[in-house]
């Protein structure tokens, strides 16, 4: 694992001048992930904020080969790219080792791109898939997705006189990916740069498909001041809203665990997407979210304990 100073000297693969928002979590996630390999890397992106803001023709912010195809198919597109690489390598037309990474938002990954992702994992393509998860369709204007948490206010599951935002819990995509028995799957978030880069390094070096689910706060959609992106990212982990886990060859472990988890309300109150939950009539929902968070945490604890196979369970 490189030091911060060493990381700062790695040439940027996503250069400045792109049109993503100041305070965008996705951009930070992409830069941290790309610091995870020193080998040449080919980037694929699903349609979304990242793609539309970094490739406005005739400009491109990418200093590395980049391909965008459509919304739901970055995993299949990169399957084709990686297969072409194997074909060329077999024929001796390419000698060097190249790494492949696919970026998709939560809409393009949890929802419309889930089938393509599952196919890519099952076929064992050597591609790292990174979901930059901002918990809604932000590019089209904050619509609910399968990653949107219970109670969040979005434009297609809005709060109203009789509704209180999203009525369902979010999908546990990391577990779904892990069920493909891939060599490496993880969750992380951008405040923990060291954790992010370490996980990216592991994922890039694994032999087979890998996956990192990165919580990438979006100040426009979550409605907090733009300069608070990293603080929100940290709060998500400290409250247990976003557990820092990894699944390496079937072994689940926490890569970081807060000594005591802060109440979930601290994470919720920092964002206006949950503002309505603090009205008297909705306060029971906060308790419900706390309960959901605790239950999921306990589930992960059980998983880490039963899969550790001789490893010492992490503190």
């Amino acid at each position, binding site marked *: 694992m490189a030091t911060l100073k060493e990381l700062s000297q790695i040439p940027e693969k996503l250069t400045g001048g792109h049109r993503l928002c100041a305070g965008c979590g996705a951009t930070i996630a992409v830069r941290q992930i790309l610091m995870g390999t020193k080998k040449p890397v080919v980037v694929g992106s699903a349609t979304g904020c990242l793609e539309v803001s970094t*490739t406005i023709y005739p400009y491109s912010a990418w200093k590395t080969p980049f391909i965008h195809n*459509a919304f739901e198919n970055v995993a299949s597109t990169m399957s084709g790219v990686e297969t*072409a690489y194997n074909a060329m390598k077999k024929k001796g037309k390419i000698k*060097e080792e190249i790494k492949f990474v696919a970026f998709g938002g939560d809409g393009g990954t949890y929802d419309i791109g889930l089938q393509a992702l599952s196919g890519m994992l099952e076929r064992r393509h050597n591609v790292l898939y990174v979901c930059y998860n901002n918990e809604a369709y932000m590019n089209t204007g904050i619509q609910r997705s399968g990653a949107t948490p219970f109670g969040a206010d979005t434009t297609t599951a809005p709060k109203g006189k009789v509704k209180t935002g999203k009525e369902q819990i979010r999908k546990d995509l990391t577990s779904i990916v892990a069920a493909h028995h891939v060599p490496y799957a993880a969750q992380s978030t951008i405040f923990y740069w060291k954790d992010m880069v370490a996980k990216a390094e592991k994922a890039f070096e694994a032999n087979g498909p890998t996956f990192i689910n990165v919580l990438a706060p979006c100040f426009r959609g979550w409605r907090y001041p733009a300069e608070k992106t990293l603080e929100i990212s940290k709060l998500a982990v400290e409250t247990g809203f976003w557990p820092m886990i990894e699944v390496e060859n079937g072994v689940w472990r926490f890569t970081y665990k807060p000594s005591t988890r802060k109440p979930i309300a601290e994470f919720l109150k920092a964002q206006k997407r949950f503002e309505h939950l603090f009205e008297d009539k909705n306060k029971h929902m906060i308790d419900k979210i706390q309960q959901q968070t605790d239950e999921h945490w306990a589930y992960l604890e059980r998983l880490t304990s039963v899969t550790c196979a001789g490893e010492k369970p992490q503190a």
Partner: protein
Amino acid sequence: MSKILPLTGDHAASESMRQINPDVVAAYPITPATEIVMSFSQIVANGLADTEMVPVESEHSAMSACVGASASGVRTMTATSSQGLALMWEVLYIAAGMRLPIIMHCVNRALSAPINIHGDHSDGMGARDTGWIQIYCENAQEVYEMGIFAVRVAEHKDIMLPVMVNQDGFITSHAIEGVKMFEDADVKKFVGEYVPNMPLLDVKNPVTFGPIDLQDYYFEHKFQQAQAMRDSKKRIVELFAEFNKFSGKKYELVEQYKMEDAEIAILALSSTCGTTRVVVNELREKGIKAGMIKIRVFRPFPMDEVAAACKNLKALAVLDRADTCSGEGGAVFGDVCTAIYNLNEKKVPAINYVYGLGGRDIDEAQIKNIFNELVDIAKTGQVKTVLNYSGVRI
């Protein structure tokens, strides 16, 4: 001496693929194209081609993987039918818009609903505006030859568009014919090595593929794409000349059968042309000046060639094996009328027949009836109904 092998249309396609030996094939099974995917997988399993297969989980992913592979700079092929082509729809436009020379065998089959697995052109005709070059084949021999020819068309540096090689589901795809094969080495030489321009995998010279293209550039790029399709006609004619020299065939964009002095003619695509040719021969024996026009290359549309073929006719029937459901019949008819209206001083009376949907047989009797109607129109100059249906219980 080249061999003659007993092959179905599907196996003719996979044999051409074996000889081409593409770098990547991404495909998904669907009747009646499954046999192509199956037999080519077996070819690879037996080491007769060293293609990398991507056995995808859907046709949408098949075309998406083809886009990724082709953009990477390798020769890429696939095969599908009907619902599979429909599921690919979104990515068909992207493959063409990104100017990727992907080759697809499309075994034409009816679209749902109601579900039907048999041959008609509703899949291919629906995809006529996706920006793919479309070739329609009459029999397994043509499927084999056009499969090979398509590589040169798609990869021509002035074309760079994907090519769809169409054949009729079951009628061609599952019927065994004697197919005259080229030698492996000759095919290898004819298709040559694919040399990509600015491939994605050139990591030292990074290129951004699929950028967002707004009001100030999109139109120019679409114009260039449309221009490439327009210009491709001339290049395809040149490539036919080269292919004909290679194969001893006389392929053109449009085939004319007994059209030199024809007064009435049927214009059709694919396997129906075989049946029509038989009827033309019979009518000729009776002294009726009948002929047939077969469109081989439907996209780019051979406007001049179609108009020229129709120039001296007294009556024309255009056969469509798909209904646009526009209320006005088939797509081929519309395009043929555009050619005649734009280019011919004398507008031949033309009628449209929609036929054979969902694999309904088209037989000699139906073709004869259509010619009989053309005889009447030629005599009177009067068209009773422009849009007609053949072989349907109304």
